[in-house]
């Protein structure tokens, strides 16, 4: 990136070209107050807070007040932040903004981390001169996630621009005019966007705040915080949970340039409340009877010792360390993945493909893509933040037009005006309908079984020499336009869901390889996975679920260790009960109450993500460390510790039981070549800064209530933390930590989330020292490395006989929908992933539970009409997993011949893949 020199108050500063003066100042830690500018929203020029004096040419001594955010940082431009006129004007702006802002900071949830507070102090406005009344508004009920207090509004338009332009929401609006602008909904009601929670950080003051935080509120300065990773899907968004007194109070996004930037989806933000769920197993139990830790270990060891053959079945919620401990306990061949078959096969296909072709895509690749094909995936339901990334990519199309007209990118209003017709080459392949359909240049509808063929058709069109319509029988004119625009992409990305199965993922990988050749540029492949450590499972070479079930059915296996997985949800209650009846022992380790707990011989209560430290590998193969923020009761311990202590008793393996998670990270790295580098995901326990640990608690600048005082008003000494670089106190180094350990977004004078810019290379850009985590599948000369590792993932061939085989290079399977006509009574049941409800743990968070819709079967109205069904009628199918009864819901956007059911609901346990079925009772 070319650099230019700008001069602030006589001092030269080097900044990237194309930035504005506000960004230039923030890049260098210079204080210019601002409100409406935001790194993702860019400049508006509305709040007028970032006024500076700008001088024209070398001889200008008078200068002119200009908004820093609207002034390009051109080479040699001279500006003054300290100019008295500019200082006076900025102070006036704050005074105007404070005219109507209530003086309710002491009872405001934003107090203590309020950008408006910080900016007011910064500009030096201290005395109130306005003598009139303040305008007030009635607050709205915006649902369980976001609180609304519009009387505090300073009209910066950030909420609206975020909600509509970035998140694609429609139901937040600005109403009224003049000094009675009202930002809210037309009427009370839940904010529809699944990204509404981000308003809490986007809003510079307390209009939009985290409602769940407010229900168990403490001030920011009382929060103990550490870096964490969201467990809500496979994207691995970085989070910053804050706890006090053993309870998580809220989760904020932690900036990661390649993943989530400043955002989280509402599933990821609000699932933390499940940590406090009273249904969680907190003591070991066997047959409902509580056991001490030692007794539980003895009992479990005894149970396993009585089995002929024990295997482990682990879910993608388990940390790499817990998986490694299980793998050691049951042996490498005894580790099985609790993944639906299609997901496992799709994931294996995606990983196998990386050895010769497309690298795995990050969300940053998606955001910068100038050509996107989404195949058989529902980004919104499967990895919600991916929808946001796609929206950002689509939004990026406008810069091409802005460049042509010479409008700087930061001029957001100008760019949006100029580029209204901008269309982004986004093509969606799938049965639809999806939230991203509206963004797409085109949608090619196809039922799941038809997607490989549809993808190959696109491949042929894309790589055909000459006109796109070289095969006129295949493509229409509208399709041609799409293909032509996709061909122009220079940063293409292909996106596919692992759940769409191996054949579709293979086809997507073929497409990515071919597109890379056409574009003469890498074309990364994004393979969506449902859980935060599914890649950890795959890279540890966990075997497919079907194989495990086959071994149990055959009576070969009679002992099962179920690690953070729900057998009932996976295979359905009937099948789970049947399997359990064949087992002598079912040892369940879980942090959460699952539907499988009642089947267990013994339940060992595991620490959840907030109660332990470990490593997760996200969809792009990025190993990331999450840290313990809450100390669980002594009866709860990390799954890896249970497993290692259990192994100590059963005598399996040769290594002595690990006493720290880090030993297991190392063990994983040594066991599997593809996991090389995972130890380096973050600095280890011995990391010190200036010889000190990093404090979980912030510096006690303002006093803190004496909640933990013992008798004699003495504070108990903080417990040691031998596993991480963090202390359980405020003692430690206050210097900025390395990015993987960034545990607090705070800087002197900047108490709000906007302090983030102080930790970034450039305001809004990557963290200083680069974005954290280690991409384990990115190695120079990777094909060779793969060849040299006989254990590489592609060796793990899907073992299920049920695998829909696609002959290599041959004709893909017949579209399932195409054959449905042979039996008019048959419906193709299709799974759908929902933001709220499909992920099992988040369902248990009260705020999320409130918005989880009841399970329904969605049908096209014509389809329902043909079957004499109306909305609300119950329809029943006899399936292999048992009877499925759901009320009918009508959706005119669906194709006929299909019924869509929600994945992950208790009613739909065991149902993960498309299936044909005939409603019972139909003639």
């Amino acid at each position, binding site marked *: 990136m070319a650099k230019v020199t700008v001069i602030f108050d006589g001092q030269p500063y080097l900044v990237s070209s194309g930035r504005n003066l506000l960004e230039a100042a923030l890049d260098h830690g210079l204080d210019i107050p601002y409100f409406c500018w935001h790194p993702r929203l860019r400049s508006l020029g509305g709040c007028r807070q970032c006024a500076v004096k700008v001088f024209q040419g070398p001889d200008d001594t008078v200068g002119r007040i200009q908004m820093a955010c609207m002034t390009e940082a051109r080479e040699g431009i001279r500006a003054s932040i300290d100019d008295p006129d500019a200082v006076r*004007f900025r102070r006036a702006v704050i005074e*105007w*903004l404070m005219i109507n802002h209530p003086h309710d900071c002491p009872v405001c949830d934003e107090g203590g981390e309020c950008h408006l507070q910080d900016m007011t102090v910064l500009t030096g406005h201290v005395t109130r001169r306005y003598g009139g009344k303040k305008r007030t508004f009635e607050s709205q009920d915006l649902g369980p996630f976001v609180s609304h207090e519009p009387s505090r509004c300073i009209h910066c338009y950030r909420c609206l621009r975020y909600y509509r332009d970035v998140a694609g929401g429609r139901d937040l609006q600005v109403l009224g*005019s003049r000094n009675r602008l009202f930002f809210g909904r037309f009427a009370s009601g839940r904010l529809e966007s699944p990204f509404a929670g981000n308003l809490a950080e986007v809003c510079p003051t307390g209009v939009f705040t985290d409602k769940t935080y407010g229900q168990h509120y403490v001030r920011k300065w009382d929060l103990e915080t550490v870096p964490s990773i969201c467990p809500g899907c496979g994207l691995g968004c970085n989070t910053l949970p804050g706890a006090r007194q053993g309870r998580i109070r809220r989760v904020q996004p932690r900036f990661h340039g390649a993943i989530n930037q400043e955002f989280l989806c509402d599933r990821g933000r609000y699932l933390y409340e499940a940590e406090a769920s009273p249904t969680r197993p907190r003591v070991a139990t066997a047959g409902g009877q509580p056991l001490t830790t030692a007794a539980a270990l003895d009992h479990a060891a005894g149970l396993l010792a009585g089995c002929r053959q024990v295997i482990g079945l682990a879910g993608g919620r388990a940390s790499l360390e817990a998986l490694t401990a299980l793998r050691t306990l049951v042996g490498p061949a005894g580790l099985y993945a609790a993944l639906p078959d299609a997901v496992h096969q799709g994931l294996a296909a995606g990983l196998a493909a990386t050895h010769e072709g497309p690298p795995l895509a990050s969300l940053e690749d998606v955001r910068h893509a100038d050509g996107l094909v989404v195949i058989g995936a529902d980004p919104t339901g499967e990895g919600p933040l991916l929808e946001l990334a796609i929206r950002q990519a689509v939004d990026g199309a406008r810069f091409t037009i802005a460049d042509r*007209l010479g409008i700087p990118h930061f*001029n957001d209003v100008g760019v949006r005006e100029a580029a209204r017709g901008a269309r982004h080459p986004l093509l969606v392949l799938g049965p639809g309908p999806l939230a991203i359909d509206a963004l797409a240049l085109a949608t090619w509808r196809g039922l799941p079984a038809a997607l490989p063929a549809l993808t190959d058709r696109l491949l042929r069109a894309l790589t055909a020499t000459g006109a796109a319509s070289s095969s006129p029988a295949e493509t229409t004119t509208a399709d041609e336009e799409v293909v032509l625009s996709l061909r122009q992409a220079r940063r293409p990305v292909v996106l596919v869901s692992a759940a769409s199965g191996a054949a579709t993922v293979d086809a997507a990988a073929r497409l990515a390889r071919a597109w890379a050749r056409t574009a003469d540029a890498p074309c990364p492949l994004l393979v969506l996975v449902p859980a935060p450590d599914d890649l950890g499972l795959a890279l540890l070479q966990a075997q497919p679920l079907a194989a495990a079930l086959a071994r149990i059915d055959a009576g070969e296996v009679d002992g099962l260790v179920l690690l953070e997985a729900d057998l009932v949800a996976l295979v359905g209650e009937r099948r789970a009960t049947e399997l359990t009846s064949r087992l002598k022992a079912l040892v369940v380790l879980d942090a959460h109450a699952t539907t499988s707990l009642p089947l267990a011989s013994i339940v060992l209560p595991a620490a959840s993500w907030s109660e332990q430290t470990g490593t997760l590998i996200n969809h792009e193969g990025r190993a990331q460390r999450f840290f313990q923020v809450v100390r669980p009761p002594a009866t709860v311990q990390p799954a890896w510790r249970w497993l290692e202590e259990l192994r100590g008793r059963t005598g399996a393996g040769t290594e002595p039981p690990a006493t720290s998670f880090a030993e297991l990270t190392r063990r994983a790295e040594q066991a599997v070549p593809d996991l090389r580098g995972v130890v380096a995901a973050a600095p280890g326990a011995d990391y010190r800064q200036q010889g000190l640990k990093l404090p979980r608690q912030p510096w006690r600048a303002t006093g803190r209530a004496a909640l933990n005082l013992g008798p004699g008003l003495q504070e108990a000494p903080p417990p040691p933390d031998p596993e991480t670089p963090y202390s359980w106190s405020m003692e430690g180094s206050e210097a900025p930590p390395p990015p993987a350990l960034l545990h607090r977004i705070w800087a002197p004078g900047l108490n709000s989330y906007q302090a983030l810019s102080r930790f970034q290379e450039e305001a809004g850009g990557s963290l200083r020292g680069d974005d954290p985590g280690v991409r384990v599948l990115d190695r120079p000369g990777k094909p060779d490395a793969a060849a040299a590792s006989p254990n590489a993932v592609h060796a793990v061939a899907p073992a299920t006989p049920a695998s829909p085989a696609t002959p290599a290079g041959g004709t893909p399977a017949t579209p399932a929908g195409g054959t449905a006509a042979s039996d008019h009574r048959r419906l193709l049941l299709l799974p759908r992933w929902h933001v709220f409800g499909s992920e099992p743990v988040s369902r248990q968070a009260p705020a999320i539970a409130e918005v989880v819709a009841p399970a329904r079967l969605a049908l096209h109205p014509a389809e329902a009409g043909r079957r004499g069904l109306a909305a609300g009628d119950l329809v029943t199918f006899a399936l292999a997993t048992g009877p499925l009864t759901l009320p009918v819901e009508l959706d005119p956007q669906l194709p006929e011949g299909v019924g869509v059911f929600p994945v992950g609901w208790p009613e739909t346990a065991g149902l993960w893949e498309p299936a044909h079925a005939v409603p019972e009772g139909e003639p």
Partner: protein
Amino acid sequence: MAELALTRHRHPDGTPRSLAEYTRTGGYLQARRAWQQLTPAELVQLVSRSGLRGRGGAGFPTGKKWSFMPPPDGSPGHRYLICNFDEMEPGTYKDRFLVEGDPHLLIEGMLIAAAACQCDTGYIFLRGEYGVVRERLTRALAEAEQAGWIGAHAGGSDRPFRLHLHLSAGRYICGEETGLLNALEGRRANPRAKPPFPVQVGAWGRPSVVNNVETLGNLPAILREGPDWYRGLGRGADAGTKLYAASGRVRRPHCAELPLGITLRELVFEEMGGMQEGRRFVAALPGGGSTRFLGEDGLDLPLDFGSLQAAGLSLGTGTAIVVDDGVCPVDLLRNLAQFYARESCGWCTPCREGLPWVEGLLRGIEEGTARPGDLELLEEQLGLIGPNTFCAFALGAVQPLASGLQLFHQDFAEHLRLGRCPRRR
């Protein structure tokens, strides 16, 4: 009688001229010429040479504005000519006067401008309260369409110019060029960032040129009589005639076309017949609400763009609001401040928050509830609000207020001394 560009054939009683009457006096011949004989470049040059400056208030040279329109690049979509008929400037009614009497003049003017700017679609953005104008324009548009002047064969050519009448939902900010574009599209009437300028990215993202009614009304005469003739109409450096008007306690408040550059004294004491019995001239806002006050010492300043600009003033719309000695200047300023505070779109801080505060301070002084230091605070606020806002709205709003504060400082002092308005008991 001096030569006229706008109102030569106007009926004395102000009833509208029909298409037949309009064409009888040579109407639409210039539109035909513009579409059939002259090239766009020739038209732009001709209007540039005439010295015509925008009559909406800012006085930007019309030909120059047109020359910024990019040539058609073959991209799909319309090119728009938009007539700013919002006319919400306080005290201003010149455009209404002009079009109520001669609606076809505007249509022909728009045809000429559209030919010059190569626009295929036009909108008349009409102030919502102008019911009579709406009625007369609707009829005139139907007549012009029937006669084939507008529509598929504009000016008898083989190119189209479709002209639509759009009724404003009614905010002062809708008269701001970019706020108007947003309002026309059915969005909030917030101003837009410049760049991009409307000629590049205007209505619906397409090249658009926005002209005032009176500006457009001058075009047929300029084409008919030539640019030199038009230049000669002005009394001073500025070309043409101007629709001047006055309101307030003058004897004959009305609108009249006069040579550009007459003095305020001529306007008030000759054209308007002087002050009403028992009333004394105190000051005037020469061009609507957003101009600075002229006191008695300004009576002999020529009311044209250049002379007023040189004196740090502006002509605005040329429709004077005359203040007499029966008016409380503090209350007048309060009234103006109330208008601007109410009409602010709320987009940027100084305008949205500053103007209501100013209104409150003025109200306090008028009603006797002012606190010590309020006058200084008022002065400070007016200095801070004006120059640093997103659009020109607040800059216009502080013109009468800041100059009024200076001009009427004795009245303010008297209010503060008495703790009430001296005109009230």
